[in-house]
């Protein structure tokens, strides 16, 4: 920053980036149309979309990727490294790491998506109600939200899971997944409530809402037909990124031994099982960890692409 010419770059006002496709006058423009036009010219969007499709395929049809049984264990092969036979090697129990990694995608995506949906439902309803009816309901909901936000995320999850499903217990697959999903959503809803609340407050004072009210529309119609469609954008952006962070959170809780646990197949559990064998069998730890990180990356990138496209400030 010491060379004098740098100032020229410094002062070059960051005008709206020229986006191909915008400014063509012949089509009716809506926010979503604009968004799509921007999105399809972004490389990051296509990269994340391809990765997303790959992970969704893995979750839906794991047999497309591997014909091995993820539960089948050959103890003699315990901790064998990667080979042509087993690309990612074998884990502590002599199970195929590649097969288990592929099958793990399903758990992570189910937990991430369902927990996000529940968060959007809880936080969205609370936020819309708080913003629309304001007054005392707003104060109460905001204070309750603050109480939940007052508990740091990991801490809260550990406390709830540690008591509801202690590390010593062994609940069945569906129960433990449901518990983890509910815990993630219960701790995460206040942030979504804030986002939904501020979006609705902004939309509430627009002329079209006043017009609808003047025409005699009831609260239900105003909320669903007028306010919600216009405050969806920030909620959508936040939820995309949230799926990624919930997938990471699920793995973190499983790692601590209080989230998912066997017989569920998940990346977090695979990592947890091999943390003590980092010297001898790093492959059994790092391959699931790599898939986990790539999956989180997919949703973070997708969220960023959508945010850049939806955020009018950046246009």
């Amino acid at each position: 920053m010491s060379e004098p010419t740098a100032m020229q770059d410094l002062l070059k006002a960051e005008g709206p980036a020229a986006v191909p496709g915008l400014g063509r006058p012949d089509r009716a423009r809506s926010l979503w149309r604009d968004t799509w036009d921007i999105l399809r010219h972004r490389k990051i969007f296509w990269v994340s979309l391809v990765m997303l499709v790959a992970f969704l395929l893995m979750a839906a049809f794991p047999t497309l990727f591997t014909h091995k049984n993820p539960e089948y264990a050959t103890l003699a092969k315990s901790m064998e490294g990667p080979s042509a036979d087993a690309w990612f090697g074998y884990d502590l129990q002599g199970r195929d790491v590649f097969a288990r990694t592929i099958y793990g995608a399903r758990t992570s995506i189910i937990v991430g998506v369902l927990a996000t949906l529940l968060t959007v439902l809880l936080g969205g309803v609370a936020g819309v109600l708080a913003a629309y009816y304001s007054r005392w309901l707003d104060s109460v909901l905001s204070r309750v939200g603050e109480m939940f936000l007052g508990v740091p995320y990991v801490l809260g999850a550990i406390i709830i899971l540690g008591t509801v499903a202690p590390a010593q217990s062994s609940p069945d697959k569906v129960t433990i997944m449901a518990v983890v999903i509910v815990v993630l959503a219960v701790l995460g809803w206040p942030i979504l409530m804030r986002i939904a609340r501020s979006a609705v407050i902004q939309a509430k004072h627009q002329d079209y809402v006043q017009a609808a009210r003047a025409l005699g529309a009831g609260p239900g119609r105003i909320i669903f037909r007028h306010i919600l469609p216009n405050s969806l954008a920030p909620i959508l952006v936040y939820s995309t990124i949230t799926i990624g962070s919930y997938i990471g959170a699920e793995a973190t809780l499983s790692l601590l031994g209080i989230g998912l646990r066997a017989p569920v197949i998940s990346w977090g559990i695979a990592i947890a099982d091999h943390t003590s064998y980092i010297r001898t069998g790093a492959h059994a730890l790092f391959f699931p960890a790599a898939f986990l990180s790539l999956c989180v990356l997919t949703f973070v990138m997708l969220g960023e692409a959508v945010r850049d496209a939806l955020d009018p400030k950046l246009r």
Partner: protein
Amino acid sequence: MGRYAIRRLLQLIPVVLGTTFLINYMVWQLPGDPFAGRCGQRPCPDSYVSAMRAQFGLDQPMLVQYGHFLKNMLTGDLGVDFNQVPVIDQLGAAWPITIRLALLAVAIEAVIGIGAGVLSGLKRGGFLDNLVTISTLFLLSLPVFVTGYLLQWLLGVQLHIINPTVSDEATVSELIVPAFVLASINMAFTARLTRTSIVENLRSDYVRTAVAKGLTNRRVVGIHLLRNSLVPVLTFLGTEIGSLMSGAIITEGIFNIHGIGGMLYRAITGQDYTIVVPVATLLVLVYLISNLLVDLLYGVLDPRIRYE
């Protein structure tokens, strides 16, 4: 300002009460017997269970228990754990280590995050900018424990640069790598926040005026631009101190550091709730108070913000 501070403090009271009640309720009232399995291979004799329940007040109604808890907290009496060891002694040993770790992490976040953010924000679209954008994207996607195990394996097991685990003394030099791991995600956030802030302020009138006055680049960036751009970054760093401490649970687990996080984690897996409640309360208080301080600091740093 003074009145605002007092009002914020008063608003904190219901939140603290609600949060601590939530913790107490979740820990003590949810199903599961805290004394099951404390007697080895056989079920605990009734006399032991009833004596323990009486000692820790579990035979009383929830609200009475909560009242006792508040009184003890206010008088600084943290009680004893299930093994009759005073909780305050254990806290005294673990607390300094976690503080050291968290402060080190904040320092790393500030230096690397702000540095990278400023450099990329000043030259938007340049090589460095793209590099920072991509590397922060990756850092944001790596869960803390993945970074932790990766560095432990790479630097500790493969290259022998560090010890894979930290000794009991937990000296600053040993804590650098764990602090880096703890800081990694926030560092990426800091870099991005700084970059956005710099890019926004570059367009502002006062920067244009400063350039028009003929000030040197160094002065425009260092005095005018940086000071104003760092306000949101500082508030972010401040609010994150609280969550760093609870985030330390995982980092401390990986590197075997005997801090608050490790203590809390052992207490939870060992179901010793007498440690869980005071430690969790302490962490929540640190979190809430650091948030409050940052809010107040905001007005000092940015006089445009007026408190009613």
